[in-house]
């Protein structure tokens, strides 16, 4: 186990009205090494908030986050954002090298590492380009390489493919699976797409509408490559669809 959430809650304080709005409540969850964990839920269920807490970018309002195994020299988590969050003034190479750079890795070493990762995400030849010279799919590859550059144990994805067109999304889903298998890293992946959850996950955590709680956890043992039209996949899809449907209804009613 790499990371454990113990009864974690997070509430946002709205200064204008003095309200406390709970985003997530009573989340207890273990992240196991090497899994592809999906956080699935309707919009506004607090799944991104949960990811930020895992990344250490937000502190939980209640409960605790634990890291049972010491992480060594690498970083425990790295985040891939939906809107890529690439630095527009840095080339692909310099974007990927940002993490090692601020952590004091010498230039030669970090450039070598960056080149290796750029190759891993299939972007060779784009090293000297700026982000605005890349397509959406290429930008997300850069973001992935940048997150890998700190050699984290866990990669956190915040709806990374939501901004892409359907074709590119399909390609990137396969790419993510390939890189997950090649690197052996642990992926924690937030999405509101059922199809994505079924295609990618080894475990699916289904969340309730806000405030987000864990509604159900599904182990997915289906063999790969998976196809949405396969019988087992379709059955899982139907089951999740019904569960998620309830939550979407609840979210719209409230």
């Amino acid at each position: 186990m790499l990371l454990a959430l113990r009864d974690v809650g997070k509430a946002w304080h709205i200064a204008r009205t003095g309200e406390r709005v709970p985003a997530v409540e009573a989340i207890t969850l273990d992240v196991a090494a090497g899994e592809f964990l999906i956080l699935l839920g309707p919009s506004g269920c607090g799944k991104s908030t949960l990811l930020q807490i895992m990344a250490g970018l937000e502190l939980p309002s209640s409960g605790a986050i634990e890291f049972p195994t010491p992480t060594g020299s690498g970083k425990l988590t790295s985040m891939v954002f939906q809107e890529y969050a690439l630095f527009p003034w840095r080339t692909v190479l310099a974007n990927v090298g940002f993490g090692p750079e601020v952590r004091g890795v010498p230039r030669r070493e970090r450039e070598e590492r960056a080149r290796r990762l750029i190759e891993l995400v299939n972007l060779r030849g784009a090293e000297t380009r700026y982000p605005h010279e890349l397509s959406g799919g290429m930008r997300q590859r850069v973001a992935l390489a940048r997150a890998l550059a700190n050699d984290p144990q866990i990669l956190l994805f915040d709806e990374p493919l939501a901004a892409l067109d359907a074709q590119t999304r399909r390609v990137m889903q396969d790419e993510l699976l390939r890189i997950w298998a090649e690197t052996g890293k642990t992926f924690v992946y937030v999405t509101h797409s059922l199809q994505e959850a079924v295609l990618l996950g080894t475990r699916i955590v289904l969340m309730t509408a806000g405030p987000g709680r864990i509604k159900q956890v599904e182990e997915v043992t289906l063999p790969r490559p998976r196809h949405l039209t396969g019988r087992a996949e379709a059955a899982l899809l139907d089951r999740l669809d019904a569960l998620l449907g309830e939550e979407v209804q609840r979210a719209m009613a409230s």
Partner: protein
Amino acid sequence: MTASHWRQLASVAGLLLAWQILVQAGRINPLFLPAPLSVLGAMWEMTRSGELPWAVLVSLNRVVQGFVYGSLAGVLLGLLAGAIRWVEDLLDPWVAAVYPIPKSALFPLFMLWFGLGNPSKILTIAVGVLFLVLVNTMAGVHAINPVLLKAARDLGASRAQIFVKVILPGALPSIFTGLRLGAGMALILVFITEIEATKAGLGFLLWEAFQLMDTRHVFVGVVTFGLLGVATTWLLQWLERVTCPWIQRSN
């Protein structure tokens, strides 16, 4: 050259030619509007005698000093105020109070405090540049996408590293907007500060010519100011291209 270029050239050449002909034909009194060629001649004489280059050097010295001090202070304060809340709180009321004052109105005060020499002129220019650069730098910092700051933090950057590696480059395009406006302001202010209590400079040269009703030399001053304006714009554009190669330009 495209058709558009030819039309632009024709516009300028045609007007200058008409102007020259009208003056030579005696239809315009050269006391009000000297012919282009005679202005050019005066410019050549004054360049050969060293009068014009000296005036330009004296003014440029004031402009460059005022511009450099003002923009350095403006960039530094703007970055700090944009990045640190309490710095912004301390600066805000002063910016709100001083920004709307025409900076030329401060020149008499500075002369009272610092005398009639260069310091009061340079300070006036510096203050004029400072506020334009400061306001634009702050706007640039505020315009940085917060997710970039989050990503930098997630990748392990310290606060100081975020300041240097994210906030500074992120604000750079806006900083250049401020510098361009500041350069224009510096030329306006150097002229105003050279009208009174000066014995040298391009503004002085122009104003003295006006008092002697020497329209040719007034024109020499006006044209030279224009050339300085064009040169500073080019210089800043070049600097921006070199330091911000990532900015998308339409052409």
